[in-house]
């Protein structure tokens, strides 16, 4: 925690008010910061304890843990990508459509055109990066506001997906048109019976953690998110870096799309849509573990797991969907409120 000796400043008489990012001054502020930093972790543990108590025979099991991990893998990959965009203080609301589009393209190439799966996968990845470059170009180079323009771009990508798939569910008609190798991308279990999708997600988490925390590019992305104008005036190639950020994020979205369709060996229309809210929610929850409230990879991983634990636990309680939705919303708002308390303290 940052300490400040108020007497040590050259100017005790700084004319400007103390800006955000300064230090909690009172005891209640410190308590709030503590609550927000550790609150999310506490919430995860409490939730696990609660579900374990309510469903002791099925919730606290290795199998359930595996299932939670594998269910959360595609969401995790997408949210990791989203985190990169959020670090720059930009939005990418088109990511869900990118997930759907790239997954569908891989399936269609194999199913309708008989492409070998590695090639189809590669094309899907390249398409993803293309979407990211396009988003980045519009937002960073041409100055389109990212919130509203990525909303429009999402609609565009959804339209393209529907054009390609005819808005139909495409699956293997037991003719082997969706290659086994493709399914294995998500379904094989290389170690400890944990599916490949989880290993892919963890690898991407590690890579993006290194990118954001350890590399020059990561520092620049945080700098741009912290203050774009100061970054420009510090000589950073802000436009280029932002475009790269969008492209890296979109590569992750494409991987999420591939994992989703490999998991089910099928493509259904607008497959990414259910990820939209949870991904943003998870990233925001994750941002509260950082002192400055910045988006970060570790927090995102915790946030995604938290959401999936809640979702799985609520399913096991066999509550009506209506109740599940309401409880889920309540938990989300609670977690966001928790991070807000911390942000105010800051």
């Amino acid at each position, binding site marked *: 925690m*940052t*300490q*400040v*000796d108020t007497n*040590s*400043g*050259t*100017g*005790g*008489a*700084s*004319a*400007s*008010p*103390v*800006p*955000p*990012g*300064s*230090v909690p001054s009172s005891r209640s502020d410190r308590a709030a910061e503590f609550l927000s930093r550790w609150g999310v972790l506490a919430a995860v543990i409490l939730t696990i304890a609660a579900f374990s108590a309510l469903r002791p025979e099925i919730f606290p099991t290795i199998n359930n843990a595996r299932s939670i991990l594998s269910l959360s893998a595609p969401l995790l990959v997408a949210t990791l990508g989203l985190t990169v965009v959020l670090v720059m203080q930009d939005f990418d609301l088109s990511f869900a459509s990118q997930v759907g589009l790239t997954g569908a393209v891989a399936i269609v190439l194999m199913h309708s055109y008989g492409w070998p799966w590695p090639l189809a996968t590669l094309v899907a990845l390249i398409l993803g990066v293309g979407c990211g470059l396009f988003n980045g170009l519009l937002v960073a180079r041409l100055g389109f506001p990212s919130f509203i323009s990525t909303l429009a771009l999402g609609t565009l990508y959804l339209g393209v997906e529907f054009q390609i798939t005819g808005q139909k569910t495409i699956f293997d008609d037991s003719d082997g048109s969706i290659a086994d190798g493709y399914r294995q991308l998500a379904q094989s279990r290389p170690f400890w019976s944990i599916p490949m999708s989880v290993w892919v997600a963890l690898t991407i988490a590690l890579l993006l953690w290194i990118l954001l925390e*350890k*590399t*020059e*590019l990561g*520092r*620049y992305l*945080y*700098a741009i998110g*912290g*203050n774009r*104008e*100061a*970054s*420009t*005036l*510090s*000589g*950073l*190639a802000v436009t280029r870096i932002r475009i790269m950020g969008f492209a890296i994020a979109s590569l992750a979205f494409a991987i999420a799309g591939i994992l989703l369709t490999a998991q089910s060996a099928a493509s259904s229309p607008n497959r990414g849509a259910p990820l939209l809210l949870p991904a943003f929610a998870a990233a925001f929850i994750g941002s509260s573990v950082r002192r*400055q409230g*910045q988006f970060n990879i570790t927090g995102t991983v915790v946030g995604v797991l938290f959401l999936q634990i809640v979702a799985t636990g609520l399913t096991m309680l066999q509550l009506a969907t209506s109740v599940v939705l309401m409880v889920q919303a309540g938990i989300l708002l609670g977690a966001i409120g928790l991070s807000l308390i911390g942000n105010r303290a800051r």
Partner: protein
Amino acid sequence: MPLVQVSGLVKTYPGVIAVDGVDLGFDQAEITGLVGKNGAGKSTLIQILAGAVQPTAGTIAIAGEEVSDLTPHEANRRGMSFVHQQTVGVPDVSVAENVELGLGFPRRFGFVDWKRLNKRAQILLDRLGASIDPRALFGSLSVAEQRMVMVARALAWDAKLLVLDEPTASLTDNEISHLFTVLRQLRADGAGVVFVSHRLDEVLDLCDRTVVMRDGVVVDDTATKQTTRPRLIEEISGTGHERAAQLDQRTKTRRRVGDIVLEVENLSDGRRVHEVSLHVRSGEILGLGGLAGSGRTELVRLIYGADRPTSGNVFVYGKALTDPRPRSRLKAGIALLPEDRERQGTIVEFSVSDNITLPSLQKHRRLPNVAVPLRSSERTAAQRMIDQLAIKTPSPQTNVGALSGGNRQKVMLAKWLEHGADVYIFDEPSHGVDVDGKEDIYALMERLADDGKAVIFISSEFNELVGVCDRICVLREGRVVGELKDGITERAIVDLCYSHELNDPSQ
């Protein structure tokens, strides 16, 4: 009984006394001129009258009735109307709507009567001799036109006291003379007018009475007939400042001034900067003097590539710089320390260390081809800078947001020293910094010059310029109006700042 009377008015901000015990009355049928340097307290006084700022102490009486907790709404209701320095109009609606905003639009069958609305606005604009279409979008107007609309808006209220803060900046001579006619007419109708301006000739021409403020107090209040331009300048600049005395005693050792490092040729941005040419040499501190809005910040932003010029050239060591972006200007050796430390100069949620190494991160790679900075190397560099510049911070990992203004200024300088540059441009570096911090900053600028760097120093506190600079260029309305070299005095700078003539050919 005066229309408005303030007594014992005090306004303090943390570390600053903006208004320090002011007693002033404004009468009906009188035009009062209010003059003084930036920071003299004029704007704060007006904001208090407008109800936008609450005084720390003192009273305001309107028509003999003491009013506590004055709000903008209450100020309007009691017959005061304001034209602020910054236009506060709604850009997305028409001129007529802006003029009558808050007055209640004329209605017909319950709907807005646009014809009548436009006509009323037209009458007011005609009175001002402004050829502005009431139906035009406010945002589509030029700055001068917008200001005229705001004057019309103030007139629409039929105010008993009309307060205008720098209304003539960027107006044409024709518009100014129309405005003056209207103001004189208002006086004849019994209204009081307060006219705040940096243009002394206008004040002498228009006002019945002239009030000079300096350092938060009224230092002169006389009938305009009995005062003169030299006397006003004398009062505005003041004599015997303790700070000035202190600064004058600085032993200015003449540095060996070398070759021209930075040269600017006919630089314009089409709005605030007009054909500025200047140069600065190695080992030289060039001061840029001027009043707020004189275009100094805009000029250095053009030099640094933060904004694009419409014409003109910038040379470093005789080589023209073509790429107008901060990134390439920095590579050419120019470094800017912006005035707004929070929004432009630092990243407040980054640590001191991360701020210092941001532009030179590549120097700290573990392996030359792998873009992964080595934390320990960064910390060593940051610590070296912290020691060298005596930055007061608990640790290199402390957030810059937690530092005082003076130390943030030093972090900005440390960032550029780490990166390296030949020209250092300081925009109001001592703004909001206490006395010791200021001395540190002056010493650092001098050290840079001693090391053969070229330094440009912008300040609104002219005693600083006098104390530190080898040479001073004074800007007014986006142009260099004079250069001072030997025996520079504060008085001479003030003189140049106020050298505006009504018939200035540049207008």
